[in-house]
C-alpha cells in the first residue's frame, strides 16, 4: 500500500475498467489458440469480464467522474502463437485484473467494496483454473492480485 498514491474511488474504478477492457481484448487473442474445454472456458471468462465492464460503465456514468474509453488495441507482453502462450497470457491477465480490483478495495466501502472483492475473487479463481489447465504448479498464489 502506498499512501502517497491514493486515487479517488472513481479513479480506482476507472483503473479497474481499463483493466477489464484489456482483459476482454486479450481473451480474443487467447481464444483462437485454444480448443475444446479450454476454449469454452476462455469464452466464459471473456463474458465474465464483459459483465464487469458493463457494470462499471453504469456505475461510473452515475458518478461525475470521467469514464475512460476502450482502446483500439493493446500491446501484448510477448507474442502469443500457441496454446502454451495463450494459457500463460490468460493467467497473467487474470492476475493483473485482480490487482486492479484489489487496489479498488481500499477506495470503496459497502456494496462497492463487496463488488470489488467478488471481482478480485473471480479473477483469482480463473487464474487458478488456467494454471491447472496449463499444468503449472502450485495452482494458487498466496496473495492474489498483490504486486509481486
Amino acid at each position, binding site marked *: 500500500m502506498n499512501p502517497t498514491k491514493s486515487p479517488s474511488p472513481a479513479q480506482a474504478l476507472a483503473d479497474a475498467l481499463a483493466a477489464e477492457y484489456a482483459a476482454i481484448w486479450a481473451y480474443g487473442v487467447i481464444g483462437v489458440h485454444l480448443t475444446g474445454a479450454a476454449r469454452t472456458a476462455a469464452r466464459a471468462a471473456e463474458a465474465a469480464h464483459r459483465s464487469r465492464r458493463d457494470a462499471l460503465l453504469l456505475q461510473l456514468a452515475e458518478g461525475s467522474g470521467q469514464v475512460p474509453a476502450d482502446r483500439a488495441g493493446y500491446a501484448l507482453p510477448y507474442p502469443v502463437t500457441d496454446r502454451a502462450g495463450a494459457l500463460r497470457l490468460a493467467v497473467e491477465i487474470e492476475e493483473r485484473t485482480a490487482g486492479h480490483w*484489489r487496489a479498488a*478495495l*481500499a477506495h470503496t466501502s459497502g456494496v462497492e467494496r463487496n463488488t470489488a*472483492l467478488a471481482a*478480485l475473487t473471480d479473477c483469482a479463481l480463473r487464474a487458478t*483454473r488456467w494454471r491447472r489447465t496449463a499444468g503449472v504448479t*502450485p495452482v*494458487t498464489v*498466496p*496473495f492474489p492480485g498483490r504486486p509481486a
Partner: protein
Amino acid sequence: MALGGAAAPLTGCDLFDRDQEPPAPDALEPLAAEALALEARYRAAATAAPALAGRLTPIADAHKAHAEELRRVIGRPAPSGTPAAAGSASAPAPDAVLTELRQAEQEGRTNAAKACAEAPAERAALLGSIAAARATHVEALK
C-alpha cells in the same frame, strides 16, 4: 481555598495502582488464529496422506504467510494462550481429508470476506487477497 483539594496526597490506588485496562484485542485476531489453525490442519493432513502433500503443502505455506502478514498489520505479538490448532490425530481417507479441508476453507473464506467488508481502508487489500486466496484453495482441492 479550592486548591487545597488538589494538593491532597495521592491516596492508595489512585494513580499507580489503577488496573491497567488491557488493550482491546485487534479485530483481526480471530482471522490470524484461523490462518494458523488452517496451516496446522494442512500440515497434519499432508502428513496423514503423503500422496496429497504436493497439493496441500503450498496451501499450508499460504496460510502461514497470511498469518504472518496479519500479525504484522496487527502490530503486536499474538495474545498468550493462542492454541496451536488441534489437528485430528487419525489418518482419514484422502477423499475425507479433502472434503474436510474444503469445508474449513469455505468457512475461512466467508470470515475473511466479512473482515474485508468491515475493515478500514488500509487493511482492505490484504484481507481481500486472503479471502480470494481461500477461495482459490477450495478450487485447488477439487
